[in-house]
């Protein structure tokens, strides 16, 4: 049943309006500005929570602005299980980021602008999630590019401007290619609706491959997939750490979301199976996993390493979705959830190290675990989840993807098994030494054991990190339950089971 409600619009507008208010408020009181930003994210979160009962009852929520329409495509929003699930996680991560930024941003310039664009980015991401048709999705997708661009270049240094330039222009170019794909689809079938599990009935021939390629280019760019990842390792680390967390954990997920919508809602599973593209997409995902991990090992800058790690994790999500099996998609969704939490936590930790100790380099982290125990504990938990150690949530996601690969057939499963073992090994290679170094190496080099006084981050920065760490453990332990309650219905709705 379709229920008309303006809740999605409220979730979308509240950060937008709050962002503008907070910009003005910031000129008077910085605390007021931060509180408004946090409040806006909380309002979005609550509004999305309020939609849960309706969605769980099997309904969808719609809101259509019929006055605002391009051709036959109105500005319309629809919330189904998948957008709701992702919206919930994203707006929650946003609250944590906003809380974390309060102290972190203290010493940085242009704080009002930072908060304004953070709120605008949240608004645009929510718009992307709740879009009813591909054009509305694209509109918010493009807005996200511009708002997050301002976050990337926040430092305004030549390096930041160069990274921002790469991000913006590559994003514009790939966005235009995607736009071309959208036009092609619209011209062929006269609709861009995202709720029909495949709208390309009756389209045959090579044009299908052109559509798939052009549409995916834009999504893969935003997701940071190999070979369109080139902007990511320079853009994510250069932003202030709360923004890095948002970019790497959320904006990248927006790309993954769009990619899944393209595969499952524009093309549909049945059509993709007849196109025999699944293996190529899986190969692309595998390459991204392998390449991201390999590059991460070579890094000395912690944030750059985390950025490369994102490239590899996005590969998992893509691979899981490209398997075109229910369990594979389930794995992709759990991985989105896992990576959102773990990568936010890791970037928060990296930010904490910069904030307290001024450390960006991995080699300088010796003994830091004694000085900043909370930070490094959170780091350890998130890193272990990234490697895929049970019972953390990262293990659950990899498990589902493996099962999905088995469902897809033997060659795929063997190929994926190799990639999985290799990449988990590589994850371990770049995360474990940091942890050992941080906890078990003495800070002093001449053998003296000086007492190190713990001097960890302030409470408002520690709390978001700890919440994420607890989340990683709890959802890891409860993964069987959550997947039955939340993920399974979502997947069934997506696959039309």
């Amino acid at each position, binding site marked *: 049943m379709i229920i008309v409600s303006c809740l999605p619009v409220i979730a979308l507008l509240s950060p937008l309006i709050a962002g503008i208010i907070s910009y003005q408020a910031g000129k008077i009181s910085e605390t007021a500005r931060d509180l408004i930003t946090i409040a806006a994210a909380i309002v979005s979160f609550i509004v999305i929570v309020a939609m849960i009962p309706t969605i769980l009852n099997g309904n969808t929520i719609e809101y259509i602005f019929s*006055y*605002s*329409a*391009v*051709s036959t495509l109105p*500005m319309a929003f629809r919330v189904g299980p998948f957008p709701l699930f992702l919206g919930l996680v994203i707006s929650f991560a946003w609250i944590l980021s906003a809380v974390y930024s309060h102290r972190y941003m203290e010493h940085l310039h242009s704080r009002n602008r930072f908060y304004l664009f953070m709120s605008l980015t949240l608004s645009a991401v929510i718009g992307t999630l709740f879009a009813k048709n591909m*054009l509305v999705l*694209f*509109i918010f997708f*493009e*807005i996200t590019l*511009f708002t997050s661009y301002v976050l990337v*270049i926040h430092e*305004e240094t030549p390096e930041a*401007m160069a990274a921002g330039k790469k991000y*913006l*222009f590559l994003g*514009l*170019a790939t966005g*235009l*290619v995607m*736009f*071309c794909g959208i*036009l*092609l689809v*619209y*011209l062929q079938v006269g609709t861009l609706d995202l709720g029909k599990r495949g709208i390309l009935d009756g389209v045959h021939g090579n044009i299908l491959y052109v559509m798939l390629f052009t549409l995916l280019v834009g999504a893969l760019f935003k997701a940071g997939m190999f070979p369109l990842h080139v902007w990511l390792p320079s853009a994510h680390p250069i932003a202030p750490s709360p923004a890095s967390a948002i970019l790497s954990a959320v904006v990248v997920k927006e790309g993954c979301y769009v990619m899944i919508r393209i595969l499952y809602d524009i093309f549909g599973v049945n059509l993709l199976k007849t196109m025999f593209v699944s293996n190529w997409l899986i190969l692309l995902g595998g390459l991204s996993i392998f390449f991201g991990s390999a590059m991460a090992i070579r890094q000395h800058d912690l944030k750059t390493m985390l950025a490369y790690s994102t490239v590899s994790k996005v590969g998992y999500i893509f691979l899981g979705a490209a398997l075109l099996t229910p369990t594979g998609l389930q794995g992709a969704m759990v991985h989105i959830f896992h990576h959102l939490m773990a990568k936010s936590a890791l970037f928060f930790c990296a930010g904490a190290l910069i904030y307290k100790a001024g450390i960006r380099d991995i080699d300088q982290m010796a003994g830091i675990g004694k000085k900043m125990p909370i930070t490094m504990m959170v780091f350890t938990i998130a890193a272990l989840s990234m490697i895929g150690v049970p019972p953390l949530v990262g293990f659950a996601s990899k498990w589902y993807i493996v099962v999905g690969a088995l469902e897809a057939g033997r060659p795929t499963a063997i190929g994926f098994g190799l990639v999985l073992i290799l990449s988990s090994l590589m994850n371990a290679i770049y995360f474990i030494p940091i942890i050992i170094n941080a906890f078990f190496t003495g800070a002093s080099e001449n053998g003296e054991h000086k007492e190190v006084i713990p001097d960890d981050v302030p409470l408002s920065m520690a709390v978001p990190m700890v919440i994420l760490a607890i989340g990683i453990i709890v959802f890891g332990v409860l993964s069987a339950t959550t997947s039955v309650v939340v993920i399974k219905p979502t997947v069934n709705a997506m696959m039309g089971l």
Partner: protein
Amino acid sequence: MVGTSHLPILVVLLPLVTAYITPLLGWIDKRICNPLVVVSMTLAFLASLLLARSVLTGGVISYHMGGFAPPFGIELVVDYFGVYMCIIISFITLMAAIYSREYVAKELHESKTVPYYTLLMLMTGGMMGASVTGDLFNLFVFFEILSISSYALVAITGKKVAIMASYKYLLLGAIATSFTLVGIAYLYILTGTLNMADLSVRLQSVYGVGGSSWTLIAALAFFMVGYCIKAALFPLHTWLPDAHSMAPSSISAVLSGILIKVGALAIIRVLFNIFQPEFVVETIPITSMISWMAAAAIIAGSLFAISQTDIKRMLAYSSVAHIGFIILGIGLATGYGTTGGILHIFNHAMAKGCLFLCAGAIIYKTGIRNIDDLAGLGNKMPFTMAAFTIASLSMIGIPPTAGFVSKFYLGLGALETGTWSGWVFIGTILVGSLLTAVFYMKVINNIYFKEPLLREDVQRDETPLGMLIPILILAGGCVIFGLFPRIPLSLAEPAAKLFLGGI
């Protein structure tokens, strides 16, 4: 309806009569010129809106001057496209007029005030007349009125460079005028009439005849070259960068925002109202030729704009690129494409009008023309710069601004052709959009994210309110008509349908 029956002539006469009253009243008191022009343009704008309503409800209006029936009397034909142009022209001129009050007081010598407003009204009268006339010779006359007054307006500052620019503009404009005049003569020889509707009927018999069709092709060629110069379609654009950058900014906004679009209007009238769509699309594929020229204009104009350092020259070259988008849409001769081209006339008028007014405000406040020196202006003039940014995004075609909607329609139109050239055109549109982003993002980055050389540069020093209001209205329009594109489309879509009816 009786009350609206004389509206077609009213929208033309309002600016023209104001042009005659302005010197009389200005002779008594110079300060009266501005309110007079503003009131007159407001009335013209309202009259255009009323006219739009009666066209939308009652279809195309034919008005016979003095009651003499065509083809002997002069006929004004107000179709969807004509009234659409009237609304744009009166709106942009109104904005420029409001802006002029403070701008002209500072940027122009006191003695120039009266001629400035007189010429502005004459030019507007010419543009309005060209939009609604149904007679080919009338179109020529109105074109002369608007051209000659625009030559004078370009040179009105009296600076040497401005006079040089005006001279260059005048030379090319004169060539264009004589070309169109020859074209008109040829058509008159062939048919013995100059009424557009009558011409299109009488030309039916000429199409098939072998010998005289050369005359017809020659006439078409003369029209195309003449009006392509007026519309500044690449490679006939050479006068535009000088003229548009040297004119006072309020005039640049009118020139770039609407005057070159009147050239596009003339191209549309010749292609679709006088000649038949079958003739210009299939027999002589002139539409495909101008599409290729337009594609070249998009790329070349954008590349030239990237290499500019002067902000007004950059905006002028950007106009060369965007007139390419408009002509490309018209030349595609498909439902979506022509709608997109016509829609882009409106969207570009607002965005480019806003950008030139912003550039004028920057020069008014700081005297800066060089793009590299704009650092820190984001703090100094926040509202003006916010408007500049929104209008720039509309030029690039970023949603939810109006430019995105026209890009959407133009892209659909290019794909709709279904030929390989359609793929080239959509590639051109997308590459052009990306190149546009290159030079507008450079300006935006300089405004907001570059450290200013002097600290005192960042003191808040906003544009005066009288100049800021039109800037903000135009920038607001870029967003509002991006969110509600139905409003301009309600005229643009039937206009395109009417032109392409023959296909």
